[in-house]
């Protein structure tokens, strides 16, 4: 359990650094400034969806034989 916590918090920190850099990018800032419309909503959904997928892939694989802490998860063969 401690091992999982440590690894997950590490990965989270890395993602957050990435996101911080993103908030410095003009493109991302432009997206934040818009008025709330349907188009903006869709854009937000896509953007935050991508971030969520990145978050999932930055996780670790847990299985009966223990933790697989490769950085980028490729695929899951059977179950979790």
């Amino acid at each position: 359990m401690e091992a999982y916590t440590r690894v997950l918090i590490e990965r989270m920190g890395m993602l957050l650094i990435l996101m911080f850099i993103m908030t410095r990018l003009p493109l991302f800032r432009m997206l934040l400034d818009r008025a709330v419309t349907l188009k903006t909503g869709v854009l937000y959904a896509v953007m935050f969806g991508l971030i969520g997928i990145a978050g999932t892939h930055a996780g670790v694989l847990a299985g009966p034989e223990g933790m697989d802490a490769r950085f980028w998860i490729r695929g899951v063969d059977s179950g979790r």
Partner: protein
Amino acid sequence: MALFFYEERIIAPIKAFFIGVFAPILQMGIILIYTTSSPESIRLVNEIGVPMVLASSIGIALFVAMIQVALREQERAGAVETQRALAVAGTVLPHLEQKLTEESAAEAARVLSMTLSVDAVAVTDMTSVLAYTGPGMERSRPEHPAVSALCQKAVRTGEIVVAELAAYADSSPSQAAGGQLKQKLTALARRGTLEGKQGPGAVVLIPFQQAGQPVGMLQLFYRSRKHVCASRLIGGVVQVSVRREGGAIRIGVQDNGIGIRPELLSSLGLMPLESGEESSGISSTAGNGLGVYNVNERLIRLVGAEAALHYRNLPEEGSRVEFRLPGERREHYEGEAYRADRRR
């Protein structure tokens, strides 16, 4: 639940934290339901439950906080500009809201040219130019509203028009069409127009109305940022030199600009310049000579007549200001300073 989410566009980080707590808990629940609580899945949930809840909740909270900071940063930048515009409007409005005379127009133009980074300000009524301050009057006359089609359009629609002087037809009317000058200035500030981001030669026309009737127009001219730049665009050098000469110290400031107008040389520092000279002179466009007058007076009173400022134009280019401080008799100098301060 809807209330919980609806209140603001960016939710508070603490709320995001709780949302981040519930999502993995839900996931754990689904794992247990679909595997019908087999001993393996119970072990799995025991292993990963707490780490997932911790990581996701803290992560989401920090992420939301980060976006909030980014947004707030931008709002602050906008607020500073708006504040400035309101301050300007506050000082100018009293002059323009009373009956538009040459005096009130001149006062408004003076205030505007001092507070904004514009080079020239013109105030017109419907028939003529009431006031104009700034250098380069001879280079481009402010037009009164009846002359140019663009000015007529601005007055008729009550909209702000930003025009390049080179291509006067190239105009972009702004959305702010309210009757109040204050609103207009604020809108201008939002678009960064007041910041002097206009190219050289741009003109901003701000029509204003009284009781629904168009009465006049404010014209802001952007040419260059400072009169120093106007006199010399690149390669300006200011040299400060301090030299010991016997027992005295000679301090000089020298530039390579366009120099001081010869007729001002004799009076500069000895008396404040006449207000008539202040707008037409190129060497002293921004001020009225009061600053150097004060410095000169202080030097003479504190140190003595030999410390007075000396101005001269250099033979090749630029001008030089010098004064001498007697180096010896420091206690005498301090005594003089004390007496001078007592006198005031």
